[in-house]
């Protein structure tokens, strides 16, 4: 509860500083390792890294909400696949891209609300409830897609994450701007609204939050539903990148998203986390992947490094907060 008082802003800035430093170190080290240092920060490479970050970043916004509230969602990857398939099916069936976009987002929200109901009404812990949904959503996606990829005509949805945006004054893909705007909105909501404060209260101490008169069950359904809408949008972004609905895509991406939140200072015990931190966390992982490839390291080194970074980031965070 201490993090929502007057000095909350200052604390969150300081907390955000650790991940930023981490990001700078990653960029610095890889600039050192590649043959031509400018290459890592060349406009084209930045465009690529930012586009690759969008799906994890949008997912991480939703996941930050859930993790701050003391929950977890393991079904994100499956939800992304499902909503991507739904969007592709809607376009293939002849609906306009806007309707397809909204249907994808809506299905994501629906999956989230179902998670919320299972957690609150059936009293299943979030880990298990969403573990179940991981299987269910993946299965439904494959079923709806008839176990194949769903191909559809090209629409403006396909342009969301292109390397060279049209119009070119956007500089980066439209999806990157969408992610930035959503992140700013989410940060404001978390910091300055009653809803945001209640999310922190719920994650810090659920019993106390309930004693203060917060309808915690209802709040949880809202949180999972809202996060689900974001996962739905992430699914649309995934479809945009593939230009098809793929029911097998994004398996395991929930772990990338959770890692982004945790690297960014989120605590799986709830009550801690920030949107800025999570966004930096997502960028750190994208730069790590990109950097490892540019340096020419094989995939297994990449996996080992990312795994190690997650543990180190959290350990440093614990060490700092113990000192504070």
């Amino acid at each position, binding site marked *: 509860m201490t993090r929502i008082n007057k000095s909350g802003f200052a604390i969150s800035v300081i907390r955000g500083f650790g991940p930023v430093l981490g990001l700078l170190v990653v960029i610095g080290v890889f600039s050192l390792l590649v043959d031509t240092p400018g290459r890592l920060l060349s406009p*084209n490479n930045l465009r690529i890294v930012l586009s690759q970050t969008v799906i994890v970043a949008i997912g991480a916004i939703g996941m930050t909400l859930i993790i701050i509230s003391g929950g977890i969602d393991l079904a994100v990857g499956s939800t992304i696949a499902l909503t991507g398939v739904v969007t592709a099916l809607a376009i293939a069936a002849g609906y306009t891209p806007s309707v397809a976009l909204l249907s994808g987002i809506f299905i994501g929200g629906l999956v989230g609300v179902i998670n919320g109901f299972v957690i609150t009404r059936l009293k299943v812990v979030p880990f298990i409830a969403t573990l179940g949904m991981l299987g269910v959503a993946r299965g439904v996606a494959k079923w709806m897609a008839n176990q194949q990829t769903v191909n559809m005509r090209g629409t403006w949805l396909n342009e969301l994450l292109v*390397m*060279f945006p049209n119009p070119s004054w956007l500089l980066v893909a439209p999806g990157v701007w969408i992610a930035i705007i959503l992140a700013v909105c989410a940060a404001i909501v978390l910091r300055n609204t009653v809803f945001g404060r209640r999310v922190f209260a719920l994650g810090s101490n659920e019993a106390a939050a309930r004693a203060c008169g917060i309808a915690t069950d209802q709040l949880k359904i809202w949180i999972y539903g809202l996060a689900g809408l974001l996962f739905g949008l992430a699914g649309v972004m995934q479809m945009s990148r593939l230009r098809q609905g793929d029911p097998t895509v994004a*398996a395991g991406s929930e772990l990338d998203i959770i890692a982004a939140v945790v690297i960014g200072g989120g605590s799986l015990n709830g009550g801690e986390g920030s949107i800025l931190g999570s966004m930096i966390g997502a960028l750190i992982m994208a730069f790590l992947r990109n950097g490892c490839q540019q340096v020419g390291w094989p*995939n297994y080194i990449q*996996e080992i490094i990312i795994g190690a970074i997650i543990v180190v980031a959290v350990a440093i965070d614990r060490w700092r907060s113990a000192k504070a």
Partner: protein
Amino acid sequence: MRKLLLLLLVLTLLIACTRNGGNTKKKLTIAVIPKGTTHEFWKSIHAGSNKAASELSAQGTEVEVIWKGPLREDDREQQIQVVEGFAAQGVSGIVLAPLDNRALVRPVEDAKRVGVPTVIIDSGLESEQFLSFVSTDNRKGGTLAADRMGQLLNGKGKVLVLRYAEGSASTTEREEGFISQMKAKFPDIELVSTDQYAGATRDTAKRASENLLNRFADVVQGIFTPNESSTAGMLLALQDIGKAGKVSFVGFDSSQTFIDAINANQLHGIVVQNPFNMGYLGVRTMVDSLLGKPVEKKIDTGVMLVTKENLEAPDVKTLLHPPLDQYLK
């Protein structure tokens, strides 16, 4: 602590800047991107690429092959990220086996826009923005199998075809090649069943084969299957009912099991692709184009019929056992 980290950061950036400009010797870097990295098929492609690189380097064109598959095998998104990474890195060219004929279109076209050309190998891409398509002529493979079958049956009898899977372009071409050659060259051979599918795995193929054999085992004299899993499933089913060796059986692709079956007269021919040559020609074509030579839009890497008679021939031996150790350190 924080000061220390900042110092470290500034130092690394400084060193990074000073290192600029070294190592400018002209060298072609070719990124070769397979669909996965663990299968034997992809290892052969890797070895072939390395052979092309060392040959070209010996001829005076310095070529380096960078081999990198998707982080998670068979994940389209991961393969896209690899293509994008190489495009940004500014490699000289990309040799790509696309996991999907549509999903990889955008990254390949984006790469072309930043000046990195692509040669497609193994599977097609629905785009015109690549230099060349280097792959097995699957139709020809089916035709070879049909010729073998006609020869085995002396031009008359009943034959069944167990297809692989709906929507798989390469195997459909093999099946069509087989069927049309059968109809054209061996009109006295009757195709009793051509509409059944083996499905994705050896297990589904075995089940489909059992059902099919249950109905046709006593009437057919010949069987054709268009890929590894369907051939393996059919072979298992034939062995189970004791029919292996009593029916003329022509399959596709190679494995040790198939070679054993050929030696045991249970399999009377396999049509084999040449992934080693595919990797080799993929890199050669890329380099030719980079050196300004014209390249064919479509290049066949060759198929070959392997039977008991030619199993010991040297060219068949290198095809079945490509010199992986020599080119993969």
